[in-house]
């Protein structure tokens, strides 16, 4: 059975000891662990807010809170989930932990900048939390900050917008770091054709972070100027335009959903070959489709605006481009499934989360087709169908990919294995609870219930109650999963360097990895990332 001894490797080796050894560390693994701790904490906070929203909607009329509190709750839920959880979740936490090792590097290109990014993240998080408790009350604009409402409300929008601005900087700096690292620090023999798919998706993501995030920064600064000095940029009475804000906002925020989903797709592309013991089907199609998604995804922002009053010609163009971006996503799904063909499939927890990802993401993607079609979107836009749809992609997709990454890579970084049986039960609860919750939301949206509604007509009651019921199953699953992972990290059975029999570089070094990753000799890569011949899984 397990013994509780302290971790070895990078947990122990550090030029400084104690807390400063972490707060001043420029080691990518330590920064990754610090990101992971913050991100999981933020996730749990926002989950509680989400459960409160669902509880409020268990019946029409007021149940546990008033309308102003409700509006602040969904706003803060959105801001935390988007800016503090999903966007940094996989790239900042697992990207930092895994990517340098996977390409055979000892750290990222700019380790100090990497630490600075983490501090920007923490400052952004603190400001976002301060915004809830100070000023004129928690922001109530929704995470989209739409004008003119956001320029008129008396709540603490300035501070929340500034927090998102800081978080944007954190994201840009991480992007610059990753692009440079992937270009410059690949080990000998690690050609572009041997990059693990996870690295490819981080590469595509990093470009979007660098190119699109400044747009968000500018837009939020303009909102602050509008509120503070009455700049009039978005005020029609003074020659401005409220719809201009929506364009500026979505020019970042639509590519941002690909920042959120692409790294998740990267995780799935690592997990499925490992647990099928077969090379990923269509390596180049997978790599290039990630770049295609990043590129085409930057050109579809106004599909959030078909009903906004924008011209019909713009609707035509953006609807067309939206359907184009569906194609590389479809290719990815077909390739993952083909990888299973004639494999040797093991249903370990990371694999189950990955299969759930495919199912959930397929529903999210197919729902996106209905939203991309001009006529259908006119009915579905701004209903709870949209809320269900993006939870299918962001939670059912990225969230489940994040869970897969936790189950796949935590043993590597703690050197310990969690219990598999509770992990399977937690997975089943999450999968069932998730689908009950968000399928009901999609259904009630098709019936016509608008989103961000504190109160609703009696005919929407049943489906709302089912969704709330589903959210409780989901909550139980989450508690079980995190407790199991926590206990596993604390006192699970020790694992060797390669418990899953995977073929990428991180599984060639000890668990937990040493501070310099590869010992005195630089690694030389002589085979592809999914070449399982002769790779044996360690017993645990």
């Amino acid at each position: 059975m397990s013994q509780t001894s302290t971790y070895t490797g990078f947990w122990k080796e550090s030029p400084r000891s104690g807390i400063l050894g972490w707060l001043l560390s420029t080691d990518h693994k330590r920064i990754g662990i610090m990101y992971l701790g913050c991100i999981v904490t933020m996730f749990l906070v926002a989950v509680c807010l989400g459960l409160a929203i669902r509880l409020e909607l268990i019946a029409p009329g007021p149940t546990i809170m008033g309308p102003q509190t409700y509006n602040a709750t969904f706003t803060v839920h959105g801001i935390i989930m988007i800016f503090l959880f999903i966007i940094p979740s996989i790239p900042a936490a697992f990207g930092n932990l895994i990517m340098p090792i996977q390409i055979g590097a000892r750290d990222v290109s700019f380790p100090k900048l990497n630490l600075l990014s983490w501090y920007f993240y923490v400052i952004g998080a603190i400001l976002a939390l301060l915004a809830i408790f100070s000023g004129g009350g928690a922001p109530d604009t929704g995470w989209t900050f739409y004008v003119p409402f956001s320029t008129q409300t008396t709540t603490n929008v300035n501070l929340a917008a500034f927090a998102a601005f800081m978080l944007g900087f954190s994201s840009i700096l991480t992007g610059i770091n990753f692009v440079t690292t992937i270009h410059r620090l690949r080990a000998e023999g690690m050609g572009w054709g041997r990059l693990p798919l996870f690295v490819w998706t981080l590469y595509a993501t990093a470009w979007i972070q660098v190119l699109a995030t400044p747009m968000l920064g500018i837009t939020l600064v303009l909102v602050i100027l509008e509120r503070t000095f009455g700049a009039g940029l978005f005020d029609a009475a003074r020659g401005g335009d409220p719809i201009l804000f929506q364009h500026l906002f979505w020019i970042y925020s639509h590519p941002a959903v690909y920042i959120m989903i692409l790294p998740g797709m990267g995780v799935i592309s690592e997990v499925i070959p490992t647990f099928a013991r077969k090379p990923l089907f269509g390596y180049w199609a997978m790599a290039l489709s990630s770049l295609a998604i990043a590129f085409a995804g930057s050109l579809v922002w106004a599909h959030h605006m078909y009903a906004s009053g924008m011209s019909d010609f713009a609707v035509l163009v953006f609807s067309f481009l939206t359907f184009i971006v569906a194609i590389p996503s479809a290719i990815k799904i077909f390739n993952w499934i083909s990888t299973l063909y004639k494999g040797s499939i093991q249903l370990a927890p990371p694999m189950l989360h990955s299969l759930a990802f495919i199912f959930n993401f397929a529903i999210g993607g197919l729902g996106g087709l209905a939203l991309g079609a001009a006529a259908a979107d006119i009915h579905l836009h701004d209903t709870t169908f949209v809320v269900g749809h993006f939870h299918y992609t962001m939670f059912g997709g990225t969230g489940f990919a994040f869970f897969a990454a936790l189950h796949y890579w935590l043993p590597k970084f703690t050197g310990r294995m969690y219990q598999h049986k509770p992990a399977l039960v937690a997975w089943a609860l999450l999968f069932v609870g998730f689908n009950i919750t968000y399928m009901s939301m999609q259904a009630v949206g098709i019936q016509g219930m608008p989103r961000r509604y504190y109160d609703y007509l009696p005919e929407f009651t049943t489906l709302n109650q089912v969704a709330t019921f589903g959210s409780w199953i989901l909550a139980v699953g989450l508690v079980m999963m995190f407790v199991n992972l926590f206990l596993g990290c604390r006192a699970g059975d020790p694992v060797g360097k390669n418990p899953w029999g995977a073929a990428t570089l991180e599984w060639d070094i000890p668990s937990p990895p040493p501070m310099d990753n590869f010992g005195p000799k630089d690694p030389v890569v002589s085979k592809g990332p999914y070449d399982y011949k002769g790779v044996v899984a360690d017993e645990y």
Partner: protein
Amino acid sequence: MNALANNPTAQAVDNVLIYIFGFSLILLLGITVVTVWLVIKYHRSKHPEPTSEVSHSILLETIWTLLPTLIVLTMFWYGWTNYTGLREVPEGALEVKATARMWSWTFEYPDGQRASKLYVPVGKPIKVQLISTDVLHSFFAPAFRIKRDTVPGMETYIWFEATEPGSYDIFCAEYCGVGHADMTTSIEALNEADFAAWQQPKATGGEARGLAVMNELGCVGCHSLDGSEGIAPSLFQLAGQKRNLASGGEITINAEYLKRAIRDPNAEVVAGYDPMMPAYDENTMNDADLQAVVDYLLGKVQKPVAPKIDARALLENNGCIGCHSNDGSESIAPTFKGLGSRQVTIIRDNEEKTIKVDAAYLRQALLNPNKELVKGFPAIMPSADYLSDEEIDALVQYLLQQ
């Protein structure tokens, strides 16, 4: 109500929804069945090692790139052509102007008539011009599958045609603050004859002019008329009342204050409320209407409900006074005498609470009598939910004056 068969805009949208959802369902089933089959067939218990090392197939990958491309392009085109049907208004449409504000709608007809509900004739296309006086809102009528944002400084439009008489929901679909979910009204589709009758100028004396103006302009979306407090102060029995102002000081409500509060609402806001009411200038409410509203609010005109519904007769005819006395004696139920100024101890969810009797409590006591029962009395009163809203209003107002 959100269902209406065969109306042209709903049909255009439903065509696309059915096409895309149908295809999606087939694809999802295919993906799921194949995945589950592969996972079972090639499970490690049966296949300890992979039986193939195939890593790509140009033919297969080309097929599953081109096929989805073709499918999504048909979806795009079908979605677009049906969308144009939502945008092209048929000839001879009746034009109505809709004004959205936090948190109510006003509809204005070509003849100058205004209403807070959208009354339309069946079988005639309706074009609704949408404007907003404050922030973004969105006109959403699920039965017709139509939605369009109202944007300050810009005019947008939607059109629809009702094929059957009925009442169909209108929601605000663009988040607009604390009253967003309450910003609902309805499309009232009437037969040709009923619509013509509705269009006739209303006989004076039916509804007081002041009340009519307030309904048209959506005042009652935020201000209740029955004493229940919401996002804005109630307008119930205002005359001579004193209120604290947010800026400090106290004001006695009179005609001058009410006029200022309508023309320049945010100068003297009642304490506890946000300065968010839009100003009503002479273009939206002329001086005569302003006077009518103020007169109505100060009780200088007879309330329209009073002459129509005899609350006392209602109490007698429905057997209320069998248990509730008018003279202060109490046996099995509280007396009506002095009700409007009484403090009572009630029991709610097994907890005692002292409250002042107000309109909201009386309304609850009529509709759901045993939820907040006055201490010491048995839970035997039946609900009066078979009465109409107007009758309940009349009873509440009558009882408060006892």
